């Protein structure tokens, strides 16, 4: 398939999900997302996740030693440990256990790792009956579908759909309708399977090296039953699940359910050190007292299967290693606007779903499986705030995108964009990525020839070519480049504040403010000057945000280095760098850490401020707020930028606007759905608009809408009409 067909196929798949699974997925993930916020509201989430992260870092660093330790512990307890190299190895071992026990049936509690291994299929082909007992897993086993969410595998199905499925498949005497009916039916059906089963299988959320304890986080009680009812228990877990000590479980016990479902604690945090002392339950001998049936742990057989399947290679990989810290709570999926709208059947690979799926898929199944959904991560970073172990999930997505770019085969259209695009990337890069990754060059060119360039870009032939070559959706208005850039305006005017003022500000002429959203730049200059700052708008190169968003890491790094060099003399002279575009402010303070030497990053990050963060600081230090325009009670609906929120910077905008007398209502949506180039891409346009509509609906009755990010402004412009930046409300020269 060529790229244009590829994009159409992807668009069709997303369109299908938007009209089928989207509604239920949205309701369920949205609920878990808001419950997580509620659960952590009065709780020191950050302190605990730092602690949890440190434990994982240490455990992965010491992994070989911990595997030896846990093997020793489990053997002391009377169990067996098997370290499986890959899926085939693990599946064969389990099959052998089944054969050795003369087993026919196996009951399972939820385990994503066995999904990764395709264990059910393997055992099925070998003639064994395998039953999923987690109700969500049971639903998708009956439906013969793949999990749509790490925590709730059947999250995309409503009660009505499950009822239809069960009624058709099981033909119960009385038709099932409600969630209560379905739960009762599944419990009875699966209860019988558990009582008959020869072997019980669980996963493990954590495995404790010093004791051989496995920790299982569940709500239904099925893992408890699977583990203790049959006399044989097999636990399958990735090697990354090992922690050194029982004490190391403590932060996880407090954080995992909050992160996953917003519960303070799970219903059951099971800490089993198998073989356990509970008597086995033989329902084939219904009238023999359980305590007379067995001698407890002596009659029990326990196997811990630790799975490598690519994890040791991930451990050696500086960029993918972080993935191994994942505790599989699904918070990255729940906090993701794109995921909320399409779910894991688009936003996922062979096994894993959500933002972290890219890391897992690349590590355990290979780059191709990561390719399926990698682009659905727009880098908005809302998952970074949500992740209980602080994984930089957008960075993993960027790195994998970069690796995928480098794997691409050259295309027939390369010649069209290569002349325009002075990047550092290999030939064969998708022209769509190349176009959006080099948007700075286009902006310069477009601005120099505006308005002709804008007219030309808007013509039908031009839009058709853009769609065919670069997948720019024709339904999306293109940004209009301005010939009168912010820099020209600033150079041509007399500064209102003497150059030797107490505060010297370098207003960074980000691509969007300089070439497109020029008015917000002018407002920013006037606001700063009215507060006594001397402002200059020098020529500083593009930030690198655009290429980074396309996975063009080398190009982004080169641009970061150029920015660093240009900013250095200003920063060394004590000037403050103020940025209007939040995605660039975030870049300087977050992603540059990945792109620049530490000292250069520290210098930039330490001297950079988002515009209203800076205004807030200047006002707090005694500047006269009355120099700014007043709100006089005017209602304003504000959508902060996703990356701005992740850096906890949205509060400054809210505070300054409120102090100036605006009645501010802030959206609670994670992301506007535009996300830079994402909403322009033909394969994602409809998803982008679906996410954007949700935001627009929140603002349906708004008198005035402001947004901090260029993308958010573009999205809201398209859906609601003209949107301004908050700094424009404060502009003393505004009409």
């Amino acid at each position, binding site marked *: 398939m060529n790229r244009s067909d590829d994009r159409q196929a992807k668009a069709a798949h997303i369109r299908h999900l938007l009209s089928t699974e989207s509604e239920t997925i949205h309701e369920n993930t949205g609920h878990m997302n808001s419950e997580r916020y509620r659960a952590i509201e009065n709780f020191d989430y950050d302190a605990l996740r730092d602690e949890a992260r440190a434990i994982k870092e240490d455990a992965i660093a010491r992994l070989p030693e911990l595997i030896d330790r846990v093997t020793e512990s489990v053997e*002391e307890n009377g169990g067996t440990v098997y370290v499986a190299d890959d899926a085939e190895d693990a599946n064969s071992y389990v099959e052998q256990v089944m054969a050795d026990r003369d087993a026919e049936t196996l009951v399972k509690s939820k385990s994503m790792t066995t999904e990764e291994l395709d264990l059910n299929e393997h055992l099925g082909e070998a003639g064994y009956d395998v039953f999923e007992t987690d109700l*969500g897993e049971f639903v998708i086993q009956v439906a013969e579908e793949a999990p749509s969410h790490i925590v709730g595998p059947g999250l995309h199905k409503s009660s009505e759909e499950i009822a239809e499925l069960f009624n058709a498949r099981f033909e119960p005497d009385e038709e099932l309708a409600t969630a209560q009916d379905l*739960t009762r039916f599944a*419990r009875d059906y699966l209860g019988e399977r558990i009582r008959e089963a020869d072997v019980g299988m669980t996963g493990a959320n954590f495995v404790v090296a010093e004791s051989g*304890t496995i920790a299982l986080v569940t709500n239904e009680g099925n893992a408890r039953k699977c583990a203790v009812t049959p006399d044989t228990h097999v636990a399958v877990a990735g090697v990354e699940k090992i922690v050194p000590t029982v004490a190391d479980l403590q932060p996880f*016990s407090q954080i995992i359910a909050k992160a996953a479902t917003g519960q303070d604690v*799970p219903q059951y945090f099971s*800490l089993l050190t198998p073989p356990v*002392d509970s008597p086995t339950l033989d329902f084939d001998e219904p009238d023999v007292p*359980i305590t007379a049936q067995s001698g407890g742990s002596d009659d029990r057989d326990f196997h811990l299967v630790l799975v490598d399947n690519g994890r040791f290679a991930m451990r050696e990989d500086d960029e993918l290693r972080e993935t191994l810290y994942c505790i599989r709570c699904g918070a990255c999926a729940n906090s993701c606007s794109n995921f909320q709208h399409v779910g894991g059947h688009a936003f996922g690979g062979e096994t894993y779903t959500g933002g972290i799926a890219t890391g897992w898929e690349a590590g355990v199944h290979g780059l191709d499986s990561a390719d399926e959904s990698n682009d659905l991560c727009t880098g908005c970073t809302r998952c970074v705030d949500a992740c209980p172990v602080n994984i930089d999930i957008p960075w993993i997505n960027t790195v994998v995108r970069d690796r995928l770019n480098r794997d691409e085969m050259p295309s027939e259209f390369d010649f069209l964009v290569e002349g325009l695009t002075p990047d550092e990337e290999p030939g064969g890069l998708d022209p769509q990525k190349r176009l959006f990754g080099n948007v700075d060059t286009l902006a310069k060119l477009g601005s120099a020839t505006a308005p002709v360039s804008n007219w030309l870009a808007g013509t039908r032939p031009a839009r058709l070519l853009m769609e065919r070559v670069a997948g720019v959706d024709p339904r999306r208005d293109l940004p209009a480049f301005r010939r009168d850039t912010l820099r020209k305006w600033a150079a041509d005017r007399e500064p209102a504040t003497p150059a030797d003022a107490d505060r010297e500000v370098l207003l960074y002429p980000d691509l969007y403010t300089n070439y497109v959203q020029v008015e917000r730049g002018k407002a920013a200059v006037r606001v700063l000057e009215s507060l006594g700052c001397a402002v200059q708008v020098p020529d500083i190169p593009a930030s690198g945000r655009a290429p980074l968003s396309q996975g063009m890491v080398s190009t982004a790094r080169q641009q970061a280095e150029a920015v660093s060099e240009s900013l250095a003399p200003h920063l060394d002279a004590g000037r403050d760098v103020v940025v209007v575009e939040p995605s660039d402010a975030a870049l300087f303070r977050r992603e540059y850490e990945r792109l620049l030497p530490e000292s250069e990053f520290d210098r930039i990050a330490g001297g950079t401020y988002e515009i209203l963060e800076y205004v807030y600081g200047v006002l707090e230090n005694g500047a006269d707020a009355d120099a700014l325009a007043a709100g006089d009670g005017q209602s304003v609906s504000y959508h902060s930028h996703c990356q701005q929120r992740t850096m906890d910077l949205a509060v400054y905008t809210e505070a300054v606007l409120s102090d100036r007398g605006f009645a501010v209502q802030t959206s609670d949506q994670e992301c506007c759905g535009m996300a830079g180039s994402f909403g322009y891409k033909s394969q994602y346009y409809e998803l982008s608009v679906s996410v954007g509509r949700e935001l627009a609906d929140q603002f349906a009755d708004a008198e005035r809408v402001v947004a901090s990010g260029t993308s958010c402004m573009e999205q809201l412009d398209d859906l609601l009409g003209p949107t301004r930046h908050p700094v424009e409300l404060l502009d003393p020269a505004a009409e």
Partner: protein
Amino acid sequence: MATSLTRFEDALVDHDCEVTRTTVDGFDGALAAALREPAVGASLGDPELSLPADVQTVPTPAQLQAAASGVTPVAFAVADHGTVAIPSTASGVEPVSLYSDRHVAVVREEQVVPDTGAAFDELGPALAEDRGSVVMATGPSATGDMGALVQGVHGPSEVHVIVVESEVSEP
């Protein structure tokens, strides 16, 4: 500040458990009121508290399966979340607490620890030294997998905790 005991009781209610506070003398009555027939149990191992004869403490699988309630002791309890720690024992505390539709947990006042930190002070030796097993259970079993929250899935749909005070506070 509320005592651990009242915080425990409040947390139990928040997590949809029923709770009765009683004394050694009042225990038999409190238990009788909490039990549903037929009942199974695991020995409380407490010289001051015993189970009535009609509670089957050496249950068969058939009795376990048919039980309306199952009464057990606990290893300890955690005030902050209303959690009871269910140990794996040869007497069958785990299956009795799990298979019955209604789990009646008997908690002595001094078994209630304040918070997660204190719980791990108990769990450390129980797991690492004794190599025991403990289920930290909070509320009835539940699922959202069928499209709405339903209590009572593979585990009990009701949890009733009887808290036994050590001394009678008033005559």
